[in-house]
């Protein structure tokens, strides 16, 4: 990965360079893995279901009350209490190609705890939800109406650097993070729209 961030004020001449960069799914996967997450890119919901079933095994699962999640988690061992669940399965509003981040929105169907209490978090992300930069994702969150009471940006599994300033993975939040990216790779071009935050 180049480490370049379109939010940092793309110049006109960067447009060509942007076009030659890897696609959003490829960049997202690389960035997520760099921070200790796993990306599973699948063509459709059926394939997503297979991946999620493999990841959950016969463990217990809490899941968002969401049609996509319901379809993909169908048949798994569901529980209601997240503190008793091995895995939480959620959706995400957006995911960031440049940083491997997820943008989560909490409401009645998407409680805060599903993505933070169980030791494993699986997020289902349709490819069109990918955006280029972190700033783009913040703009997406800001546009949600009505403004949700809770939102969260997540970049990798929880971690702490508090013992000798060395990052270890697995602290209070999930110890493992899987993102199942659903949809064809070319369903969205790599170039993002105008980077709203950066343009002045």
């Amino acid at each position, binding site marked *: 990965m180049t*480490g*370049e*961030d379109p*939010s*940092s*004020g793309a110049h006109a001449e960067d447009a060509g360079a942007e076009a030659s960069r890897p696609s959003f799914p490829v960049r997202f996967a690389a*960035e997520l893995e*760099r*921070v200790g997450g796993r990306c599973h890119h699948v063509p459709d919901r059926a394939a997503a279901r297979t991946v999620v079933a493999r990841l959950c095994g016969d463990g217990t699962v809490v899941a968002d009350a969401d049609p996509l999640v319901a379809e993909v988690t169908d048949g798994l061992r569901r529980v209601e209490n997240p*503190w008793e669940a091995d895995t939480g399965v959620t959706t995400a509003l957006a995911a960031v190609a440049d*940083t491997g*981040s997820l943008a989560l929105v*909490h*409401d*009645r169907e998407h*409680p*805060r*705890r599903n993505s*933070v*209490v169980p030791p494993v978090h699986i997020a289902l992300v349709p490819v069109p939800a990918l955006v280029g*930069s*972190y*700033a*783009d*994702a*913040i*703009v997406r*969150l*800001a546009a949600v109406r009505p*403004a*949700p*009471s*809770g*939102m*969260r*940006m*997540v*970049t*990798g*599994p*929880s*971690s*702490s*650097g*508090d*013992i*000798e*300033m*060395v*990052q*270890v*993975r*697995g*602290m*209070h*939040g*999930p110890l493992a993070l899987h993102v199942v990216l659903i949809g064809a790779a070319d369903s969205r071009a790599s170039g993002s729209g105008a980077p*709203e*935050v*950066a343009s002045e």
Partner: protein
Amino acid sequence: MSGRSIALHGAERVPHSRPEWAGSVRPGHRALLPLVTAEAVSRPESAATAARLTERSREWQDGGWPENLVPLRERAARIRRETLGDLESHLAQLAAKVTEHGGTVHRAATAADATAIVRRIAAEHSVRLVVKSKSMVTEEIGLNPALEADGIEVVETDLGEYIVQLGDERPSHIIAPAVHLAHRDVAERFDALAGERLDHDVTALAGFARARLREDFRTAGLGVTGVNFAVAETGTLAIVTNEGNADLVTSQPPVHVAIMTPEKVVPRMADLGVLIPLLSHAGTGQRMTVYQTLVTGPRRAGESDGPRELHLVIVDNGRHRILGTRYEEVLACIRCGACQTACPVFRTLGGGHAYGAAYGGPIGAVLSPLLAQHEQDRELPYLSSLCGACADVCPVMIPLPDMLVDLRADDAASGRRMSRAGWRAWSALWSNRAGHRVSLAVAAAAARLLPRRFLTRLPVARRWARGRELPDLRGAGRLRRALRRRHRTGDPA
């Protein structure tokens, strides 16, 4: 109603092996800084801490700012300053939005006012256990001791804060509270807490803390967090962590109290897209920290988690006196701790404890005396070699070294007549050619005639000679003589 802490069960077994000036409650009076710093430097732990911080500093900070962050840094500096220029209207907008979303906003002028508000909220809900996500302002206002005085248990859930809480210490670094401790020290604390020998692998120790703290998130009656940024246009509070503890603290307990100082406000949501990547890079060398928890009001009807009540406490504690002065920019600080990691003085002291204030390092040496909570903080601006490394790494370009120099001038102007007279006399002497020449001759004569033992007892020389051989002052004035001779004869120097 709430339960009692599992995380602190056995905490009385953890020995408190720290110097007095590192204690969790800031002592009302501490020894003078030259004494404290000498003691800090002599502790073997300090050298180990310095080595760790230096290594991180090289990893994260060497090579300067990544190209993609340079424009972000300039924008962040501008956003922060523009906000300060119209702080009150941003705060009014923030308060209106938080209220609109069902939160309650409290304004507190002083630390005592702020702690009184939190105590009242805790009392109203019969809270016995509070879980906290890391917050420097609660250190500044002394929230934990205030709640504990009411018989409430307060549990720090950030791993580093939990470690220092067990040892009855203050955090030693803004974002790495336990940076002064080695892996072995943490293992010893956790062994004592558990009453048995644990697996000392770092991941296992983190796992022990995770397991210990987990139940407390569920049973606490109140969750307390700081605020990294508060968005005026939406009333959204942004809390930045790696551990995910803020997500639990703001979602599990029935009441959430968020505490911030006025300058944490930012105008727009979009500003987070600029500030958070910078905070991540500057603080821990990460591209992004793991979690940014965005709270907009308490839980809504039908939601199954999130607090039923949200209180936002905005505590000024001296900030209004800084606004509009030449030090206003210090309020642009986003508490990344980069200036601390970069500071060779902070590193050599083994972290921030020796500064004796809530905030150590360059930012603390500027901010603490301005907050004027303690008379002794007036000493802090002198605790710097003015090397400027802090300004290089500051994500919002605060001119900390210049402020240190200016604070010294303010301090000198307001006290110590003797020293002022001495500097004036010296400047008068050296503003005069004959005076300059005479002073050099006196220095040379003293160096030639006086025995070394006597020389090293002279006021300035004595302090130099603590650890260093004196420079050879016998040559004072030699340069001028050599140049005059050269001028006369045309000889090479």
